[in-house]
Every structure is written in C-alpha cells, then in structure tokens.
C-alpha cells in the first residue's frame, strides 16, 4: 500500500510540475509575457518598469524561480478588467462553480443509477430499450445546444425558469440539467452493464434461492457490487465535467470560474487566465488522485493489479 501511495503521489507531483512548466514555457515562447499581462497601448517607460517589476529582464532560470514564487504566494498580479488581485477575483467565483458541480453530481447519481438498474432489469423489454434510447440522445446532444433548447422552451416560451444568473435555487435547474445530461447518459450505461454482470453471478441465484424478494436481491446484493465500477467512473469523468461546466456557465451567465475564464480569454485578460488554468488544472489532478486512492482503499484488487 505504501509503495502504491508513493507511486501515485509522485505521479501527481510530476504532472503538476509539468503543467506549471508548460504554462511558463508557453507564455515565454509566444512573446514577452508583459504584452499579455498589461493592457495594450502601454507607453514605453511604463512597459520597461513593468518588465523590471515582474523580473522579465532577468535570466530565464531566475524567471522560472520567480514564477514559482508567485505561484506559492498566489501573487499573479491584477486582473486587467477588474483592477484587483487575480486570486481575489478567483476566490469569489470558486463557490458558485463548486455548487454547480455538486448539484450536477447529485443529479447525475440520482437519475443515472436508477435508470441503469431499470435498463438492466428491463433488458428484454421495450422499456429497457427506451431508457437506452433516451440515454443515447442525452449523450449525443451537445451540452450547449441542450442548454439553448432548454432556454428557448422553459424561459422564452413558458417563462417558467430564469435564463441567466445564479442568484436563486430556480437558477440551478437548467444549468444542472444541461450539464448532467451527458453524465446521466454515461452513468446509465455503466450502471446497466455493471448490473448485467452482477445479475448473472452465482451469488445472485443463491440470494433468490434462499427466498429473498426480488427487490432485496437486486438492491442489496446486486447494486452494492455493481456500484464499485460506477464509483470509479464518476471519478474518471471529472475532466469532462470541468470542461462542460466552462461552456454551461457561459451560456447561463453563471457567476463561476468557467464563465470567468472564457471572458478572460475573449478579452485577453492574461493574468486571470493563467492563474485560473493553473488552479483548476491543479485541482482536477488532485481530485483525480483522491478518487484513485479512495478507490484503492475500498477495493484491494486495485492494489494487486499493480501501481
């Protein structure tokens, strides 16, 4: 277990180091970062001052160390649009994004797992097919198109739901659905496959033979075993989830990190973007490893399969 842990953590450290270094290199390769960090039309003297302030006139290695220092202290300068430290701008929006992601995860599990079980139990009937067809549609319709269609129907035609903002609970409905559809579809499929595997096991026959009700058999013996791969899959999808959130937040003017990053890209607000990419990428990598480790703790077969 210790060996496994060390190998995993080492890999995360290397990955984080590579991400940070790649961002550093990318910004230096494509010109003087000061042109990204400062507004356009800066006069020559201020430009020189800022270059000195950020240490961009020093040797590359020293710059690299300075880059690390600003990373450690969280000092990545001021956002170009809002003249405030990027870390502060970012901090304000983190909560909004986190709550959208949590709502999405909750909805995904609440719908995907039962739908998968239903599809497995009804595998030979038209109802099971119907579940799979709906899942396929949920998968095939791009999230932003689904979002737009939802807005057209529920905001503009029916006036049931607000189309933009993140102020109240009703604001959560459409972004959560638009973001979840893809994952609900995927989870339905995974749960179905996992359940079908489990349903054909000997211990299921034993459970029935000893007189348990069908519900008890499916839920107590089937679901518990089927959930192991399902939990893994949820963890695996975190990168896709974050990518999706970036788009969905933009559609619904959700006051979160994704919306911030897209805006920063459009307006070339480089300090915000650089910081955001580093923080979100770092968070995703760390969440991945957490899932990985948690999973290894639950299921000893993972450790045996090798680190």
């Amino acid at each position: 277990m210790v060996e496994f842990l060390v190998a995993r953590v080492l890999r995360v450290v290397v990955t984080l180091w590579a991400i940070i270094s790649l961002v550093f290199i990318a910004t230096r390769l494509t010109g003087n970062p000061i042109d990204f960090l400062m507004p356009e039309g800066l006069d020559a003297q201020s430009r020189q001052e800022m270059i000195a302030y950020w240490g961009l006139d020093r040797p590359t290695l020293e710059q690299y160390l300075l880059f690390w220092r600003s990373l450690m202290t969280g000092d990545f300068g001021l956002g170009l649009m809002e003249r405030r430290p990027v870390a502060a701008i970012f901090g304000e929006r983190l909560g909004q994004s986190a709550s959208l992601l949590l709502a999405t995860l909750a909805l995904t599990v609440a719908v995907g797992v039962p739908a998968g079980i239903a599809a497995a139990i009804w595998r030979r009937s038209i109802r099971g097919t119907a579940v799979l067809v709906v899942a396929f549609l949920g998968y095939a319709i791009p999230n932003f198109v689904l979002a737009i269609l939802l807005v057209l129907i529920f905001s503009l035609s029916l006036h049931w739901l607000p189309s933009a903002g993140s102020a109240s609970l009703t604001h959560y409905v459409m972004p959560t659905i638009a973001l979840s559809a893809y994952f609900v579809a995927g989870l339905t499929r995974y749960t179905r496959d996992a359940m079908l595997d489990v349903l054909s096991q000997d211990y299921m026959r034993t459970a029935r033979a000893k007189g348990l009700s069908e519900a008890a058999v499916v839920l107590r013996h089937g679901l518990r075993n089927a959930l192991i791969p399902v939990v893994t899959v949820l963890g695996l999808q975190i990168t896709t989830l974050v990518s999706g959130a970036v788009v969905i937040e933009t559609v619904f003017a959700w006051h979160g990190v994704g919306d911030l990053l897209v805006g920063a890209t459009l307006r070339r607000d480089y300090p915000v973007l650089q910081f955001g990419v580093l923080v979100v990428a770092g968070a995703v990598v760390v969440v991945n490893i957490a899932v990985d480790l948690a999973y290894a703790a639950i299921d000893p077969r993972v450790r045996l399969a090798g680190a």
Partner: protein
Amino acid sequence: MPNALEAKPLIKPVSMITGAAWGLLKRPTLPSGTNGMVVVAAGLALLLITVALLAPVLAPFDPDQQKLLARLKPPVGFERANLTYLLGTDQLGRDLLSRCLYGLRLTLALALLGTLVGLVIGVGLGLAAGLLGGVVDAVIMGLVDIKLSLPFTLVALLVIALAGTDIAVLIGVLGIAYWAHFTRLVRAQVLSLRELPYVEAARASGGSGWRIATTHMLPNIISPILVMMSLNFSNLILLESSLSFLGLGVQPPTATLGSMVGQGRDYMASAPWIVAVPALLIVLVSLAAMLMGDFLRDRFDVRLRER
C-alpha cells in the same frame, strides 16, 4: 450479454486518470436490436455530407450577404415568412439556409482536418513509444497521462488566448484534442504485434524500425485506427461547435453551426429561429456522426480497450 471477464478492465488502476478515454470508448450506444437505425444514420450522414459538399451549388444566396430590408424573417410555415428565405434570415438579413449549408461545410472540414492532425501526431508518437521503448516510451506515455488528466477546454482557452483566434490555430487546437487516444491505441497494438512471428522474421531479416513500422505494423492496425478516427471526428464536430459557440473558434462573419448559435443568442427572445435552426442541425449532425462511429466500431468488432 457481457460476462464477468469483460468487466475486469474497469478496475485497472492504470487507466484511472484517463476519464476522457473511457468517455470516448464506452459511451452510450443504442441497443443491438435497433440496427435499422444504422440505415437511417448512414442515410442522414450521406445526405449531410452531400449537401455540405454541394453548398456552393445549393445555397440560394451568399452566406455573408447582408440585406437590411430582409432582416429577421422567420422560416417558412411561420407568420410573416418569405418564401425566398426557406429557413428565414438573421439579424443582418443573411439567409439562414445558405449560412447553414456553408457552416455545415466548414464544421465538417475543420473536424476532418483536426482528426488528421491528431492522427499524424498520435500515431507517430504511438509508434515511437511502442517501437523504441525505454525512455522515449516513458516520456511519451507521461505526456499522454498529463494530456488525459487535464480538462481539455482549459488547454484550448490558453492556446487561443496566446495564439489568437485564427482558423489555423483552431485546427491545431482540434488536432491536439485527441492525439493521446491514438497514441495509446497504437502503442498497445504495437506492443502486441511486436511479439508475433512475422514481425520477428522481418526484424531477423534486417528490416529497419521504420520499415517494420510502416510496412508490417501499420497495415495491421489500420482498422482500429479508422474506427478511432470516426469516433474522434464526431467528438471534434462538438468541440469545434462549442469553441465557435463561445466565440473562440471561427470568427464572424464566417459561419459555422456553433458560431451561428453563439451569435444568435442575443436575438433568442425576438427571433428564436436564428438559434433554433443551426442548433437542431447540430443535433442531427451529432446523432449521425455518433451512430456511424458506433456502427463502424461494432462492424469491425475492434477491441479499443486500453491495456
């Protein structure tokens, strides 16, 4: 019905940080009883490709031509519709049918180019990793892990912020979106082919690494690569649409389906068709592409599973 052995790879820790790969390989598919759908999908795909190729012939107007007197005409079948503009016009009086045809054409072309770029990068690296082994293999697979552990949207935002919104940049971004999947696939195939007698014979008779790779290995792994290409193609259609939707892809006035949806959002309340027409077309394209990808995968019965 899948058996217990089939489910084993789900608990392999090696693939823990590769959510995107799983999303790609084990996505929801229609149940096998719905083979008639394949005919429909193939027909739809053919139709879409044909009209895209024939856009200059079929389009009644120049897609970028503005006619201020014919602004905001709804599609035929609605009040105030004008028969000249079958699908209506947008806020600048541009014919939506023409824009859809040209937009579809550009979307398909960009997805194809992106797929080819990803193919060249990914297959090249996969061959190198599989054939050369050692440090090269470790570095390349390390890059693959990093690539797969990041939400790709973040990478895309960073690249676009640094390099600008140029169509060449967009193709590059699409190209680096899925290279890692090709690399994994090709490396895995090379590793298993390497042990086969005929490759050993080729090596014994003095064939160079390059020759073995191109004449002995590539022809044997062409069908999984083709299937991977078709899956990537459908994913790139969505990625291009998302980026253009966000305003980070193809720039106005040039139309792609995604940018039409993105630009039309401001008029959703008064002229919903500007958004609805390209949005529904994206759904059709996406459905056709996904069904075809699944069909090819099942038809060639390729094991796209990771090692």
